[in-house]
């Protein structure tokens, strides 16, 4: 299903509260990211692409679902840009659209094992669906 609603850089600014134009592309965020290898677009690229208005590409990115929300990127940014918030804002722009949930409760039973904590399920549902 294609994305129906156009999302602009202004929308990402409004949702994230992050001014991507402050980014100086030093790459420290991507260097700090513990899940860098799993991402097609990396944290510093989110900042650059939001600035250029390339939101559609980011909305189709698999990196949206690989971010661990560990805040290493935000912590280590020397310009206070908080890439984690940019990634979250783009992810929200996708999953808020009809039919665009990335993971639903139906998918959970087969992912469960005896020890998995409720915290994991609640967190994944918050991150991957609306």
């Amino acid at each position, binding site marked *: 299903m294609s994305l129906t609603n156009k999302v602009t850089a202004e929308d990402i600014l*409004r949702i994230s509260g992050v001014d991507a134009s402050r980014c100086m592309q030093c790459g420290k965020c991507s260097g700090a990211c513990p899940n860098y290898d799993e991402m097609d677009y990396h944290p510093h690229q989110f900042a650059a692409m939001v600035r250029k208005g390339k939101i559609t590409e980011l909305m189709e990115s698999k990196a949206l679902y*690989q971010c661990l929300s*560990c805040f*290493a990127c935000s912590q280590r940014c020397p310009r206070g840009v908080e890439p984690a918030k940019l990634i979250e804002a783009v992810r*929200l722009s996708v999953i808020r659209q009809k039919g665009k949930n990335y993971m639903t409760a139906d998918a959970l039973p087969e*992912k469960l094992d005896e020890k*998995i904590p*409720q*915290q994991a399920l609640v967190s994944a549902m918050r*991150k991957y669906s609306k």
Partner: protein
Amino acid sequence: MTYGYYPGCTLKTKAKELDVYGRLAAQKLGILLEEPENWQCCGGVYPQGEDEIATKLSSVRTLAAAKEKGQDLVTLCSACHHVLKRVNLDMKNNETIRQRANNYLKLDTPYGGETEVIHYLELLRDKVGFDNLKNAVVKPLKDLRIAPYYGCLLLRPGKEMGFDDPEDPTVMEDFIRALGATPVKYSQRNECCGGYVTLENKDAAKRRASTVASSAADAGADLLITACPLCLYNLEANAGPSALPVKYFTELLAEALGVKEEL
């Protein structure tokens, strides 16, 4: 000393040790932890969107209930602590979020971030004091080399969490010393365990967990301690051959204070 206490959902189910040993130890230290009635799940992750209001409301209800009782609110789970602390700061500092959340909740008195959110480790460090804790220990854990696993959520973002130095924390090492054990410092102690991504990309979570566990093992640790049920799960289930035993910090605390019971 009486505090409000927010256990969170996982501490009632898969992480009972974190909760029960935390309560037993607090009692021994003369701290009364009062659980509010009808608390709701914090949601597990802090909703970063500035326009996310509904997902912040359960935290606001908990925070406002503590304010009504005039209590500081103690947390144990790293994730609950992270969510409650950051939502509380939003209610204090972000006028739009504060106004919109209060419009939804229609409390008798609007909530404006008045409650202090304190993690159990901060309680030990700042209210009890590690010297006093050391004096209360009846069974020092003297032969143990313990790797403290901080993970992400207690420390970052440092400006908001205000928990410790986010890149070179010491509170868990000081805690371990107070119990009579030896802390082991290792490079991955504040890097992510893989978090909820264990449900989406198991291989990536396995790489993260094994990196953390092998970093601690290489530094000579006997076991890892954590304050987070999801960290414990990842470090146990996803670390593969490099896995070390993992315990909640409260279990060792209860043991050292001589109040540990088998669950």
